[in-house]
């Protein structure tokens, strides 16, 4: 088997797919992407507030700064496609269409939550929308994605399974096994590596001998491109191209989405391991301000548009908090329900 791709390299070292998807989408589409990113951002800002206020507990990993990745990739998927994600998956769940109220209620551990309150922040599920979680073992979701794709391929369903994971996951043995298996069996998986440069406190240079992760992925003989993960349009374009190829039998593809998390790894993290200046630099590239700026410059967006979107979203989120607060907690007697399908109590 030979290498299946050799993406061209631009001067700056970033390689972009050679083929171009047919004409860009218009302003309405861009506004939609913007609004989705704002939605995730505002949702998570609220979560941080609720966590500090003692209403959300356990682990909370926010996606702030990385929204362009989930929004861009999701824009390339259809409702028939599947998603497997990590513990940093609020964004993926929301853009997938898991109802806000259900996601928020899950943060509160209520029975109206998308996982019945059982999972919390790290374990959002919505099988009706083919959203398969919410996996908190690093790289633990990759084999599931491979298996979902295997089922699709064996049945002849032309689905894509989008599998999200971080740069840290690339060091795990499971990553390797899954890349090989997907490539060997030509499975319809879209691997989406969210390279935010850190695995908790460990910078990628101290974790990966080869920090060019797309190059690493390519060594399995699979098309792999680095993408500017702070630019939602770039992500959307690359994802569309990749997803179309996957869907039409092109086998697995790998996107290295170069991004950054603006906040600490989790609410427990004092964030001592990186320079404040580095964080500030990346914040200059905030995907929301970036897209908004572009759209404003193109005359597609006014301050009022933004403000009213922000207000609408805020109202929706506030309502979801109210409904989550009011929702019932699971009775303790149901604790053992769903350990097995047949022995619900």
């Amino acid at each position: 088997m030979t290498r299946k791709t050799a993406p061209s390299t631009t001067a700056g070292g970033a390689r972009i797919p050679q083929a171009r998807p047919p004409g860009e989408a218009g302003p309405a589409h861009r506004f939609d992407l913007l609004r989705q990113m704002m939605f995730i951002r505002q949702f998570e800002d609220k979560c941080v507030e609720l966590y500090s206020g003692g209403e959300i507990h356990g682990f909370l990993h926010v996606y702030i700064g990385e929204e362009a990745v989930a929004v861009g990739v999701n824009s390339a998927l259809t409702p028939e496609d599947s998603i497997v994600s990590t513990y940093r998956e609020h964004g993926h769940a929301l853009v997938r269409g898991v109802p806000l109220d259900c996601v928020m209620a899950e943060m509160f551990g209520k029975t109206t939550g998308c996982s019945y309150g059982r999972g919390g922040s790290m374990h959002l599920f919505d099988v009706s929308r083919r959203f398969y979680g919410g996996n908190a073992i690093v790289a633990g979701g990759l084999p599931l994605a491979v298996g979902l794709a295997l089922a699709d391929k064996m049945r002849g369903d032309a689905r894509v399974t989008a599998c999200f994971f971080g740069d840290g996951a690339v060091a795990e043995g499971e990553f390797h096994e899954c890349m090989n298996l997907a490539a060997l069996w030509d499975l319809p998986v879209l691997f989406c590596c969210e390279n935010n440069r850190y695995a908790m406190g460990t910078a990628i240079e101290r974790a990966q001998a080869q920090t060019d992760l797309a190059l690493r992925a390519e060594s399995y003989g699979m098309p792999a491109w680095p993408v500017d993960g702070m630019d939602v349009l770039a992500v959307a374009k690359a994802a569309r191209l990749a997803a179309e190829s996957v869907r039409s039998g092109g086998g697995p593809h790998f996107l290295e989405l170069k991004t950054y998390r603006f906040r600490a790894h989790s609410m427990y993290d004092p964030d001592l391991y990186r320079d404040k200046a580095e964080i500030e630099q990346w914040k200059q590239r905030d995907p929301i301000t970036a897209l908004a700026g572009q759209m404003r410059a193109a005359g597609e967006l006014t301050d009022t548009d933004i403000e009213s979107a922000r207000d609408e979203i805020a109202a929706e989120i506030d309502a979801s908090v109210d409904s989550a607060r009011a929702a019932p907690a699971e009775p303790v007697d149901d604790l053992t329900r769903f350990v097995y399908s047949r022995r619900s109590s």
Partner: protein
Amino acid sequence: MSAKTSQHPAAAATAGEPATTTYREAMRAAIREAMRRDDRVFLMGEDVGSYGGCFAVSLGLLAEFGPERIRDTPLSESAFVGAGIGAAMGGMRPIVEIMTVNFSLLALDQILNNAATLLHMSGGQVNVPLVIRMTTGAGRQVAAQHSHSLEGWYAHIPGLRLVAPATLADARGMLWTALEDPDPVLIFEHGSLYNLRGTLDEDAGAVDIDSAAVRRTGGDVTVISYGGTLGKAMTAAGELAADGIDAEVIDLRTLRPLDDATIMASVGKTHRVVIVDEGWRSGSLSAEISARIMEQAFFELDAPVRRVCSAEVPIPYPRHLEEAALPQVDGIVAAVRAVVR
């Protein structure tokens, strides 16, 4: 759950059209039947295809079903077990073969944190109708890294069902029932059983995977065993009978959930118990059984429950040392004598 009394395969079958076969062939017949009945079923694992399975269980199936459904995998235990979980979530009915329990450790994270956990953690949404088969046990002089009996560990995991076929009928019949279960089922096949020969009705088929079986009735002592040690327990019972000690032998069949009712009914009758388990003694399944008897039948006991387990050593290569490390008929007989004394 009720106990069923049935014959050890060494005894001749009594109904239907009995044919001579082996445990290996019975297992293969079960896979073949499942593949024919349900096209969502496929077999996946290392060397299940062109090699024919490391214990030759799937020999010939590649020719019949092709490489899509008799699917050889690379040496990637975590990925292909996890892929089995994903495929089950995606609507298939995979049978994943892990060559032996020794290598299953590499997939344990997937089995525990995904297969066993997804249903509960997702609030009842994500079913994992997966069957994992693996060989367990020692006895072939394959030394320390290839001789584990770790089914007791798996029996600790909520969300899993575990079965250990010890007879031809169970080798033939447990798989289909396992495949019909909406939750993950692990099948432990003791390596020493594949060549077990006996008769099986032509129309042998699915059997329950809920209950323990009383393989020999007796009134003096209850000997509890499963999988690879059932034969030794039966032989010991035979020897003891010659001495006038009448042992009841229970084959657990299902290691999780344990069939407490069958166990306690027997204890209530015999008041004396010996548990035989090829796992290392400390923390083996035998410990849990002893603890449950303590909890549920303490006042029935005329003597403390005894355990005949493997010595707590990495299993050594030389035959005499391996034999010394594993439960043997003599040890069972001695333990029974000690409790009936």
